[in-house]
């Protein structure tokens, strides 16, 4: 099968959907001729024109609001938010308007829009261009949240996001844009709320999101040589969350770690860990372990930044301790 980059996969997904449905348009900063700073959208304005690939002023709340209004009136906008960190600027339009319109109108209005943005540290971009803020939006009822972990996932999830009638926030890991993976030429969609068992195992379940899937796989590979068999699960969407696949795995392995690049406190790792605790408690041989990003603003210096996110070595070490029973006292 051919291999393409994650960037190309996103581009293909959007182009295919825009060919299929003329109500779709793209809106954001430097999305047209520039194709975004990451070049993810290159070539789209040439095919679809500036009426459908719309460059905006640097007005995140403004174009987010415009997209909400367009979505309520028959369009299907894809909003490009250059950095996930800028979510803080669009919070009112996203969380007070888009997320609540369907509910507050008693089901009469809907807001079919996609907000595509990114996450991920270690790009040496410091605290305002490195955050992974998906927990922030996952907290708000009415928003769906997708987290592709490869080029294949990115294409299939993007196409589903575009066809969904709800506001969907999709987080791409900006360090993965140039990573290649096998992606079929034929059309496919990846349904929301269906986790992917990326690797089967017996001793320990690792639930990992976005680029942390690769971190978990690398740790699993290292542990395999030591006789520890790890199952890796990629939820694909954290809203909706495929609890059943996660719980089934944990019931089998009796141990679980949750790995995510958002800050550890009050985040995705805590949410998934507590669901496992509530619903699979009697199957557990150890407390569920959380590994998120450190609770610090992301520092610039490489010597510091690399300490803040989970690594294969760190994950493997935590797993060893867990299997040795060393984590019971909260160490």
């Amino acid at each position, binding site marked *: 099968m051919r291999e393409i980059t994650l960037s190309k996969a996103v581009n293909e997904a959007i182009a295919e959907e825009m060919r299929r449905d003329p109500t779709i348009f793209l809106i954001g900063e430097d999305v047209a001729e520039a194709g975004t700073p990451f070049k993810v959208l290159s070539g789209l304005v040439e095919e679809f024109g500036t009426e459908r690939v719309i460059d905006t002023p640097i007005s995140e709340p403004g174009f987010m609001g415009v997209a909400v209004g367009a979505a309520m009136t028959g369009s299907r906008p894809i909003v490009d938010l250059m950095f996930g960190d800028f979510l803080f600027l669009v919070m009112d*339009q996203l969380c007070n308007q888009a997320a609540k319109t369907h509910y507050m*109108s*008693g*089901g009469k209005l809907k807001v079919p829009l996609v907000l595509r943005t990114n996450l991920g540290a270690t790009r040496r971009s410091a605290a305002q261009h490195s955050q992974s803020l998906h927990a922030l939006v996952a907290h708000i009822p009415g928003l769906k949240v997708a987290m592709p972990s490869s080029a294949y996932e990115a294409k299939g999830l993007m196409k589903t996001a575009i066809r969904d009638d709800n506001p969907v926030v999709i987080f791409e890991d900006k360090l993965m844009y140039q990573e290649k993976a096998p992606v079929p030429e034929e059309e496919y969609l990846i349904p929301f709320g269906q986790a992917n068992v990326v690797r089967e195992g017996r001793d320990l379940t690792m639930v990992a999101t976005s680029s942390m899937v690769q971190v978990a796989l690398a740790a699993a590979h290292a542990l395999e040589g030591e006789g520890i068999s790890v199952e890796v699960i990629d939820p694909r969407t954290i809203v909706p969350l495929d609890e059943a696949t996660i719980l089934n795995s944990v019931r089998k392995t009796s141990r679980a770690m949750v790995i995510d690049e958002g800050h550890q406190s009050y985040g995705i790792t805590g949410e998934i860990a507590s669901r496992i605790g509530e619903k699979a408690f009697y199957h557990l041989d150890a407390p569920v372990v959380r590994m998120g990003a450190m609770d610090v603003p992301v520092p610039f210096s490489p010597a510091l930044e690399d300490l803040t996110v989970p690594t294969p070595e760190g994950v493997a070490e935590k797993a060893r301790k867990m299997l040795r029973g060393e984590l019971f006292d909260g160490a």
Partner: protein
Amino acid sequence: MAKAGKTSATAGKAPARKASDNSGAYLRMYRQMLRIRAFEDQANQLYLSAKMPGLTHMYSGQEAVAVGICEALTPEDKITSTHRGHGHCVAKGAEFREMFCELLGKAEGYCRGKGGSMHIADQSNGNLGANAIVGGSMGIATGAALSARRLGRDDVAVCFFGDGATAQGLMYEVMNMAALWKLPVIYACENNGYSEYTKTAEIAAGSLIARAEAFGIEAFSVDGQDVLAVNELAGRLVARARKGEGPFFIELETYRYHGHHVGDINRDYYRSKDEEARWKAERDPITNFARWLVAEGVAAQDELAGMAAEVKADAEAAVAHALEAPYPDVSEVDMHVFVETAA
């Protein structure tokens, strides 16, 4: 506050056409203003008699704004409304029953009781919702205009907002885009002199229409108590916006009769009783329009009184219905969080 600058329409004068040519439209405007006033009188009573959950913001006094503008729109045209949204809702074609049901949180309400006063809207008539975030709907109205243009429809969007909302940054972001892209949107600023308990003069530096003019948007000031002046200006601007000559900005000078919300009773500390009495006596949009209708021979005084009695009876019947109507079933609490249609 700036009034009637070089780009302003003349306010306060009746248009130079013969009243009898248009009597149907005039009487409809009069009735719609009466309906808003009657709705608010009933809503206020529901609050005072502790039959309504929560608070509500009365539109009484501002009727000529909503009616003058909405009578220039078709059902396909879109509006966005505010926390003070009952007037816009009535003016855009809503029915009393579904509105009172919404106010009381009943299943028959336009939003199945999930929105209440601050989110009330008859969506089937192009009302994209009342909004409890001050200025929160400015992007939505602008986006509706973009959508219409992109999809080849000729509908126009009107964004209603208060003087207080001009302090929100979103307004400047979306007016900029609307002007760059020549969108069919009309920003209708209802300047009632106050945002909450603060005079507009204390929160808004410079002129309001100049804010729009800075983006190259044609801006107008009009007497918001004069339904004919509002309707005449709105009609012209809607027609021009449909032809692609938008966006436009209108400042409508108006006044709210009640407090900021129904519970804002003792308010002399920010607004004098004298001032309130003067507006009611001299500039009431309904009284003044009635006087004009009679003077022009469009209707006799007793016909107008009959219409008022009819509207009041309608409102009372709708309230009685809403008070008896069932609440939503508890199973509805987690319904409509997401659209359920399969992707």
